[in-house]
């Protein structure tokens, strides 16, 4: 009877496992395998040249553009982690309170994430760009008496990446907002009432109740932010047209360029696998960190 139950359970999960294997595991293994070949994506794979770890070696030690892309993605991620998540948290905290039209704000704040990245990129390019766009940011700066801050934001290599990061944060904060809001609403109001009776002010309640109880949510949002930001590239194409002499290059754009412009599919697969591994490691570290920081409830 027990064996029959076990078999039956396996029977039920077999289709899901099959689909998962066909569409996830096998392609992953295939891509991993391609990382060891010099292959242009055209000739049959049997004719591709096996190069061992040469692609990985080249990426690690001979390709400065890859590391520049990683650094750029890291910078955008840091800005997103701080700026995007701070805004998301503050807005969620504000909307969790009894304010007028809070449902309206909830909808408004969630509009940017549902917009297409390329559309957001093109629209912001139009808003910001001082050559072919409306140059609105500079006009606004001039109007409020700050003409010395007027700048060619997207065309200056010193500001292009940070501008990209800020637009990315604008586009992405809505996800964090929603998750933070759900987390805040799950905190029992009795805790705040008890703290209030004990004489805690708003800041102490926030520091000693909200932040500790929200820590798992903060970590979750941080993981999602890192994963989402490190892989962003469409927005960059919309904003600055591409890699801008390497200043707005990110790993996915590099992989695309290697695959599309250079027809080096094998090398692109090696980059993809390595990049995926890095993301998994970052997520794992954050997960471990979150487990350590989780409040002990029992």
């Amino acid at each position, binding site marked *: 009877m027990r064996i029959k139950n076990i078999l039956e359970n396996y*029977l*039920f999960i077999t*289709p*899901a496992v*099959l*689909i998962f294997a*066909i569409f996830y595991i096998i392609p992953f293994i295939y891509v991993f395998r391609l990382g060891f070949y010099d292959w*242009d*994506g*055209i*000739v*049959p*794979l049997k*004719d591709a040249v096996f190069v061992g770890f040469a692609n990985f070696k080249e990426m690690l030690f*001979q390709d400065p*553009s890859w590391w520049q892309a990683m650094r750029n993605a890291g910078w955008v991620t840091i800005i997103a982690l701080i700026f995007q998540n701070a805004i998301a948290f503050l807005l969620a905290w504000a909307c969790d309170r009894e304010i007028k039209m809070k449902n309206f704000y909830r909808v408004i704040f969630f509009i940017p994430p549902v917009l297409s990245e390329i559309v957001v990129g093109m629209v912001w390019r139009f808003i910001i*760009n*001082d*050559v*072919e*766009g*409306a*140059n609105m940011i*500079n*006009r606004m700066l*001039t109007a409020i008496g700050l*003409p010395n801050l*007027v700048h*060619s934001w*997207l*065309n*200056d*290599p010193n500001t*292009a990446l940070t501008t990209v990061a800020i637009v990315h944060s604008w586009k992405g904060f809505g996800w964090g907002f929603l998750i933070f809001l759900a987390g805040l609403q799950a905190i029992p109001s009795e805790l705040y009432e008890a703290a209030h009776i004990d004489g805690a002010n708003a800041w102490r309640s926030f520091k000693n109740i909200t932040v500790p109880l929200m820590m798992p949510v903060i970590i979750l949002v941080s993981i999602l932010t890192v994963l989402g930001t490190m892989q962003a590239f469409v927005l960059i194409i919309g904003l*600055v*047209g*591409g*890699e*801008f*002499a*390497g200043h707005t290059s990110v790993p996915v754009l590099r992989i695309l*360029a290697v695959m*599309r*412009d*250079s*027809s*080096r599919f094998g090398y692109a697969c090696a980059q993809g696998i390595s990049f995926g591994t890095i993301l998994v490691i970052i997520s794992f570290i954050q997960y471990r960190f979150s487990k350590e920081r989780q409040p002990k409830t029992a």
Partner: protein
Amino acid sequence: MLSEGKRFHILSVFIIPVLFLLSLSAGCSPANKSNAKTTITIWHWMTDREPAFQELAKRYEAQTGIKVNFELYAPSDIYSQKVRAAAQGANLPDIFGILGEKRDFASFVKAGYVLALEPYMEENSASWKNDFFPEALAVNEFAQGNSYAVTPGIYAVPIDIMTIQMLYNKDLFKQLGLNPDRPPRTFVELLDIGKKISSTNRGGSAMDYGGKAANMQGMVSGWGDIWMIDCFANNYALNIMGKDKVIATIKGQVPYTDPDWIKVFALFKQMQDSGVFARGLVTMINKTAEQLFANDKAVFAFNGSWGVNVYHGMNPKLNYGVMLPPKASDIYPMAIWGGAGSSFMVNARSKNKEEAVKFLRWLTDRDQQAYLVEATNNLPANKNCLSLAPELLAQFSKGMDNATHPNAWEVWEASTVIEARDKGIQSIIIGEKTPEQVASEVQKVKVRELAKKR
């Protein structure tokens, strides 16, 4: 015994995934199963030519009874990946195009996906071959002893030709006090015009910071996408050092630190400093560049002959002329990129390959080419139809005498070197690196590539 409900559950657990997989596999089946009537399937990426192709397909079917099925897959990036994937899955259509560099074309040929067309071209005293501009055939041909190790011959049929040149806005020329019928012929003249543009604008932008429209910009082009930079740089490399030395550089016999190459890189700095280039040129996509030029905001554009149709759509009153990039040296002629614009290949494994060749022959005949010129504003590949091209297109076609293309050369530069060169030029334009620094960096990449080959 399993209950009926449980049995239903087990069945549904299996049936749904099986149906799901079957529905997916249905999409992977070849486009053409055996039909009683022959159908030629063609995959293309040319959105602007789709209606004209459909019309020609109707005419061909009316004349021959053979159905031609043009299938559009756009944008070109997606198309390119689709063709590669189809090649891997042995699902290529009867006729297709390859977008990419010559080495990609060579890989397709060597893998046996492309039919050799030389025998068909040579029939009847090469009457078909003689219809085409030699430059248009050159990019589809592999010469004897080519470095790709492809059996010599012609492997694709050009359906139109293109040249990439400079365009100038005649109305803005007048505003600058210049003769609108006399574009700059030397590099010094070009720099002088750049200075005039700068002094008119005092460094302003298309929309100035006060919100008033609109200062004129210098040259616009899609240099955010680096291949057009490569095209411009190649023009001047060929003008300054000649084709032999450029080829010698590709072969590794001349370094990129050679004074002639530094001279080429330095031209970009001079153009930037004098105001020839529009602001934000290195992040500009070609569509934006086309809009700026079409809306009388840019004095110059660097664009292909396909732009004639685009500008006409954006601003039919645009008053402009076509010019070769002004010469920086008198030793060698100015060269421009040109040759086959779009080409079609025949699937060597297609059961309809003979019919496919016949259709391509028909498509490049005078009548059909004349129709394509009229309907799509592209230069015909058939040289007998050139007289039918409208005035501006005819100006582009004059550049065919100066046209060349890396795809027509016997050797090819490594993509990593091309990327380093073009990104380096972007860095020069934004004032980040000197021509000497860029030359040295490109040479480092070149040395690495040469070492790999060894």
